[in-house]
């Protein structure tokens, strides 16, 4: 799995802890990393993903339906699942304020053995680390 993930675009380093099943992925600075591809690559290697969290910096944008997204690159955005923390970001939506967010992109439904994640991945905000 480590080699599988290491071959994905935008991945600089992969660290796997066999003790607790934790996988830490350090992206390259080229911004080419795609979390959905990492999930797929992990499944393809025969391992089941229980949870995927990311830390990302970008701008908050609002679409015509009022849904918030974290815009990381012109071609990479994560739709934000509304919760208490996401409401705090309404104020910076549509501005050039950069926010660093820690959020969850995937969590395996309870009780099921192996489930393919639904795409596109949605971001549940766990915390806002920085606003600039």
């Amino acid at each position, binding site marked *: *799995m480590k080699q599988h993930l290491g071959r994905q675009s*935008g991945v600089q380093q992969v660290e*796997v802890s*066999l003790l*607790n*099943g*934790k*996988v*830490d*992925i*350090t*992206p390259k*600075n080229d*911004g080419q*990393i795609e*979390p959905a591809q*990492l*999930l797929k690559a*992990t499944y393809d290697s*025969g*391992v*089941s*993903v*229980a*949870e*995927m*969290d*990311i*830390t*990302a*910096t*970008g*701008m908050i944008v609002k679409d015509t339906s009022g849904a918030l997204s974290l*815009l*990381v*690159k012109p071609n*990479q955005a994560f739709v934000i699942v509304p919760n208490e923390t996401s409401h705090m970001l309404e104020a910076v939506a549509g501005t050039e304020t*950069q926010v*660093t967010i820690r959020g969850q992109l995937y969590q*395996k439904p309870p009780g099921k053995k*192996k489930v393919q994640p639904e795409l596109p991945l949605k971001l549940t905000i766990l915390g806002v680390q920085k606003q*600039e």
Partner: protein
Amino acid sequence: MNRKIFVLLVLLSTLVGQAQVKHVEMRVEGMT
């Protein structure tokens, strides 16, 4: 003048470089 442009370019590249996925963490099951 050239120095100003250089400084501006460095600042711009710093700003553009800030927006990115900085870290990914997964918890996996069934790993041998």
